C-alpha cells in the first residue's frame, strides 16, 4: 500500500457524479499534479484525499490506515497535524494579521503565543514576506496573500501539502514565485504534495501527473504538462 491514495473512490453531489471509481497512489515525498478540465472532479479528489469530505464508496488511506471511515474530529486532527491545505483564495482570516494567520495552526496545536509568533515570523521570512507580518490580508496583493497562506499551510511542517489551484487567482509572475517557494520548500522538507491545477505550466513543476476526465482517471496517462512538453 502506498503512502497516500484512494481505491475505487466514488463521490457524487446529489445526482451529479464527481468521482466514478478513482484509484490513485501518491508516494512519500512525491509531488503529484492532478489535472483535467473544469468540473472533472479534481478538487473533489483532493478534498477526499485530505479528509475534508468523505467518499460515498471506495477507500481513502494514509500511511496504511483508512481515513474515510474516521470521525470528523479525527480527520480534522489529521488535517491540523499531518496535512497542510492551500486553496485558490479566501483562506486567510481577514481580521488577523499575516503573522497571526500563520501562527493559528500552531496555537490550535497548543503552542504558546510567543513561540507561535516566532515560528510564524520565521516562515514568513522564508517566503519573503516577513515585512508584512503585521499587515492584514486586505492590505496585501494576491501573491503576498498566497505566500502567507503557504506559510500557514507549512508552519506545522506537515507530511502532506494539498494545494487546490494555488496560483489560479494570481498573475504569471506572482504564480511563478508562489510555485517556486512551494516546490523548493516541499523538496527541502520532503513534503508530499498533491497539486490540483488545470494549468500545464503549474503541472510542469510536479514529479508526476494524473489527469481526470468526467470523474475517472484518463487511461492514456498523457497529462497536460506532458502534452505541452
Amino acid at each position, binding site marked *: 500500500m502506498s503512502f497516500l491514495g484512494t481505491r475505487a473512490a466514488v463521490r457524487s453531489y446529489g445526482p451529479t457524479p464527481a468521482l466514478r471509481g478513482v484509484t490513485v497512489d501518491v508516494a512519500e515525498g512525491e509531488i503529484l499534479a492532478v489535472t483535467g478540465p473544469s468540473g472533472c472532479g479534481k478538487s473533489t479528489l483532493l478534498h477526499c484525499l485530505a479528509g475534508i469530505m468523505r467518499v460515498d464508496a471506495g477507500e481513502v488511506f494514509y500511511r496504511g490506515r483508512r481515513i474515510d471511515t474516521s470521525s470528523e474530529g479525527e480527520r480534522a486532527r489529521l488535517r491540523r497535524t499531518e496535512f497542510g491545505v492551500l486553496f485558490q483564495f479566501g483562506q486567510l482570516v481577514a481580521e488577523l494579521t499575516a503573522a*497571526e494567520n500563520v501562527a493559528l495552526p500552531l*496555537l490550535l496545536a497548543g503552542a504558546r*503565543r510567543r513561540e507561535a509568533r516566532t515560528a510564524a515570523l520565521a516562515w514568513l521570512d522564508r517566503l519573503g514576506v516577513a515585512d508584512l507580518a503585521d499587515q492584514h490580508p486586505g492590505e496585501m496583493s494576491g501573491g503576498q496573500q498566497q505566500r502567507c497562506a503557504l506559510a500557514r499551510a507549512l508552519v506545522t511542517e506537515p507530511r502532506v501539502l494539498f494545494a487546490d489551484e494555488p496560483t489560479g487567482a494570481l498573475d504569471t509572475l506572482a504564480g511563478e514565485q508562489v510555485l517556486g517557494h512551494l516546490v523548493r520548500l516541499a523538496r527541502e522538507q520532503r513534503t508530499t504534495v498533491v497539486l490540483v491545477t488545470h494549468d500545464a505550466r503549474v503541472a510542469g513543476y510536479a514529479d508526476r501527473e494524473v489527469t481526470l476526465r468526467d470523474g475517472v482517471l484518463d487511461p492514456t496517462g498523457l497529462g497536460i504538462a506532458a502534452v505541452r512538453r
Partner: protein
Amino acid sequence: MLLRLALAGSRTDTVRVVLTGLSAALATLAILAALTVLAIPTVLDGGSNVSPQYRNPLIAEAGLRVGVAATLVLLTIPVLVLAGQCARLGAPARDRRLAAYRMAGAGPRQAVAIAATEAALASGLGALAGLGLHLVGRQLLGTPGADGKLALPTDVLPPVWQLAVVVAGVPVLAGLIAMLLLRRVVLTPYGVVRRVRTRPPRPWAGLLILGGLGTAALLPPLAQYLDRSGRSMPYELFGLVVLVAELAVTLGVIVGTGWISHVTGRLLHRFARRPAGLLAARRLTADPWTGSRTLAALLAAVLFGAFAAGLRIRMSTEFAAEAEYARRSAEVSGLPYEPWDTTFYQGAYDLVYLALTIALVIAAGGLLVALAESIVSRRRAMAALVATGVPRAVLGRALAWQTLTPAVAGIVLAAGTGITLQRGLYDREVSSGWGTVCREASPTDCVELPAVVRTVPLPLDDLAGFVGVALAVVLSLLLVNLLLLRTSTAVEELRAT
C-alpha cells in the same frame, strides 16, 4: 424599469423584501394604534376626563392616553432597527447584483436608487398591509363585551389625512434609510466597496451618558429650590428634561457599546491564549460597531425597562407609605382601616412591561438577522479554516466571545444607566401624610402624626429580570447561530462565490 430591477434577485433578496415589508407593517400598525388612542375625543364626565365606553382605564382616562401613545410609538424603534438589519440580509448577493447593474451602464446614483426603491416598495406594501390589518382588526374587535364596554378604541379612527401620511411616510422613510445605509458604500462595476471607519471608537459616548445623568441629577435640587421660593416646576420642563436625558443616555449606551467592544477586544487580544479568543478579539477590534449596531434595540429596551422598574418600585413604596400612614391614622382615630386598591396602577406597569417584552422580542428578531448575516458573509473563510483542520468548536467559541462580550457589557451598562437615570430624576425617599389626627370618640383628643418616610429600594428583582431576559435572548440566538455555523462551514461553501 426601476421597479423590475429593484424586485430582481435571489431567494435571499425575497426574504429581505418580505422581512422589510413585515417590519413596515408592524411599524404602521404601532403608529396607527398610537394615533387612534390620541383620536379619542376628550369627554368631561362629571368633571373628570373619562371615556366610559372603554373597559381599560389606560384608554378611558384622557390623562393616561399620551403615555399609551408614546409607548406605542416607542415600540416602532425596535421595529425600525429590525428593518435596518433586514436591509443587510443577503448583502453580498445584492452587492453583486448592484455591481452588475453598474457594469450594464447604471450610474452610482441609479444603483442607489434601485436599492432604495426596493426598500420603499417593500415598505409601501407593508404599510398598506398594516393599514389593512388595522381596519380589519377594528371591525373584528369592535363588538362590546358583556358589560357593554369596548376592549380597544375601535369606535374611533384617526383623520384620513393622518392615515395617508403614515402609509406614504413609512415607505419614504424606508427608502431614505436605505440610502443612508448605502452612504459608506461605493458601487463600482467590479463590485461593492464598503468604506470602513478605520479610526477606533473614542470614549466620548461616556460624556453623553454622564451628560444625561448629570442633567437628570440637577432636577431634584431645582425642584426643591422652586418649591422653597413658592413656585413649582412646570410639567413641560420636567418632561423635556426627562426626554433629553433619556435620549442622551440611550445614544450614549448604544455608541458606548462600540467603544466597549473595541476596548474588550484589545484586552482580549492582549490576554487571550487560545485561538478562539484571538479570533474574537481581532473581530471585535476590526469592527467594534457591529456590537452597538446589532444590539441597539435590545439595549434601548433594557434601558427603558430599568427606568420603568425604578418608577414602579417607587410607586409601590409610595403606596406602602400611604397605606402605613392610613393604618396609623386609623389606629389613632379609631375609624376602620380601608386599604387602597392599587390594582389599576400595578396593571398599568404590567402593560408597560408587556410593551417592553414585545420590544425585546422584536429586537431579538433584528439580532438574529444580524448574527446570521455575519456568519453567512464569512462562510467561505470559515469553511476554509475548517478544511485546514480548525475545529468548528473553536469557531463556535470565537463567535460566542464575539457576541457575548459586547452584549453582556452593553446590557449591564444599559440596566445600570437606566436605573441611575431614574434615581437621579426622582427623590430616593418618599413620604406620606403628616398632620393632626383626632380620635373619633373624642374629637378634641388630637395627636400629631408624623409622616411615614420610606427609602425607595433598588428594584433588584425587576432589574435582574430584564437583564436575565435580555441575556437569555442573546444566548438563545447564539445557540441558533451555532447551528447555522455548522452548515455555513460545510466544504461546499469553499465553492461558494
